[in-house]
């Protein structure tokens, strides 16, 4: 267990190192940061001063080390565009993205698993067929088009839900949340569905395929031969075996939710880090891009670690050492 954990953590550190290297290279080689920060009119002396202030006159290795040390302290310098601290910008917008991503993830996982089980068990009835066809369309459509469609239907035509923004937000000091107000919750519905829909269809198809596979297994037939009810066989035996391989992919899918939030946030003008990133890409705001990259990488790495641990918790074949095999 410990060896496994250490191995996984080392792997995670390696990925973070590579991403840091990329982020640093971005920062160092794409455009001239000094030129970007001071503009064309600054004098040579000004530039030299800023250069040494930023440590840009140091050897590259030292700069990279400094970059890592700073990144570890969540320090990514100043945004070229807004001249504000990048970490401040991100922290300010992180709650919006995390709330959206979390709600979407819960929606996608719960609905995905439930519909996946349903379509696997009730294979062949018209509702399952309908769900499967609908999911095919869902997978084929670009996320932003789904978002626009939902806005048009529920905000413009029906007027039930807000079309953009986060609604009223409560500031808790270290966190600002939209989950505590009615308008905040209502504003969350459409973006969360938009963001979750793609993952939902993916998870659903995966659960269904895996469940159909498991339902063919000998131990399922034997469980039925033992006289266990259909409910127990499907929801206790088949489901648990289905979920093990599904967990990995669901975990990775959750990571992509944060990335896909970029699109949803743009459609719904959601004030999160995704929208911040898009603006950064548009204006080549390298520090923000680098910071966002590091943040996403961290999220992915953490999710991967959690997935590995979950695997361990669910599958006794990994958990229990020894035994006759």
């Amino acid at each position, binding site marked *: 267990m410990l060896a496994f954990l250490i191995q996984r953590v080392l792997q995670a550190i390696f*990925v973070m190192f*590579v*991403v840091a290297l990329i982020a640093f290279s*971005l920062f160092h080689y*794409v*455009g001239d940061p000094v030129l970007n920060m001071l503009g064309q009119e600054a004098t040579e002396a000004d530039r030299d001063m800023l250069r040494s202030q930023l440590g840009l006159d140091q050897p590259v290795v030292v700069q990279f080390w400094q970059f890592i040390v700073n990144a570890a302290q969540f320090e990514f310098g100043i945004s070229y565009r807004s001249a504000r601290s990048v970490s401040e910008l991100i922290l300010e917008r992180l709650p919006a993205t995390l709330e959206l991503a979390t709600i979407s993830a819960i929606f996608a996982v719960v609905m995905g698993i439930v519909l996946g089980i349903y379509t696997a068990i009730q294979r062949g009835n018209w509702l399952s067929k309908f769900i499967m066809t609908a999911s*095919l*369309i869902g*997978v*084929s*459509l*670009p*996320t*932003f*088009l789904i978002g*626009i*469609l939902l*806005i*048009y239907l529920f905000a*413009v035509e029906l007027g039930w839900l807000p*079309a953009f923004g986060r609604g009223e937000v409560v500031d808790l000091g270290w966190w600002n949340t939209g989950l505590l107000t009615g308008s905040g919750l209502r504003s969350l519905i459409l973006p969360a569905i938009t963001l979750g829909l793609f993952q939902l269809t993916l998870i659903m198809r995966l659960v269904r395929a895996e469940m159909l596979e498991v339902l063919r297994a000998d131990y399922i037939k034997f469980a039925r031969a033992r006289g266990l009810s259909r409910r127990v066989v499907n929801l206790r035996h088949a489901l648990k075996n289905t979920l093990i391989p599904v967990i990995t992919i669901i975990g990775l899918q959750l*990571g*992509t939710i944060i*990335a*896909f939030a*970029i*699109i949803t946030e*743009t*459609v719904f003008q959601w004030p999160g880090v995704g929208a911040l*990133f*898009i603006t*950064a*890409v*548009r204006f*080549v705001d*390298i520090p923000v*891009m680098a910071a966002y*990259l590091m943040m*996403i*990488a961290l999220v*992915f790495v953490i999710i991967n670690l959690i997935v590995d641990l979950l695997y361990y918790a669910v599958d006794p074949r990994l958990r229990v050492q020894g035994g006759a095999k």
Partner: protein
Amino acid sequence: MSQHAERGDVVVPARPGRLRTFLDSDIVYSWKQQPVVIVATLVTLVMFAGALFAPWITPQNPFDPRQIDLIDAFTPPLTTSDFTGTFYLLGSDSQGRDVFSAILYGSRISLLVGFAAVLFALVLGTLLGLSAGFRGGWRDALIMRVADVQLTFPSILMALLIFGVIRGFLPRSMHAEVAIIVLIVAIGLSDWVQYARAVRGATMVEKSKEYVQAARVIGLPDRKILVQHILPNVMRPVLVIGTIGLALAIIAEATLSFLGVGMPATQPSLGTLIRVGQDYMFSGEWWILLFPGVALLMLALSVNLLGDWLRDVLNPKLR
């Protein structure tokens, strides 16, 4: 059986024509069996044709300012303008641009970027995969590690990042001009990994086969072995990935343009048109958004269905 083999003058049955063989194949049979696939094929063909022949079909060139009349702005669909007497099938936008023409020209760009990006990814991925699989060693290790790290991130994020980086190297004034090339490279670069992995696997299988070993023993140069023996054998999985890749590339292009980091409004793709049209969703000019949206929807859906079907027919194992 053995009797036949002994006879020298076995009558060879008249060889059916190529078209005949094709029409009898499993692919055509499977195609005829699925009405959804037939519809998808028709829609795809119509949209491809519309995009290809846009200059001859459309009433105006929406990119040419001289052909556009600002006074016709916001003409509803199926209406003849009171000012210029021009008929607008799908209405006009805020610039007085014919939406129908804009959609056809937009699909042209969407498809161009889609095809070019897939080609880029395919060539790059195949070359890297061949190199990794055939040479092995540090090349293999390096290429596959890079692929692993890149696979950790969704390709749309990679495309965004690459797009941003390429822009960083270019002077700002050039951004709009080279947008289409930057887009192709960004999407292509974000998508080479799958090809490289498939090609590497196939190459390693092929490399270990005896005929390749024999070719090496008789001193055939590596280049020749790669091109003549290995490449033909790895093309099938590559083409299968490519068919799915086209739908993904079209969606990626539309998404980037929608996000405002793809094609500029002066040279709109379907994604750009949707982004621009979104502003008029609330003010009642629904056609500016709806028609490009439907066009993208049909294109993405039918190409996707077609790709899925082709993948299943060509290689059921790849599922």
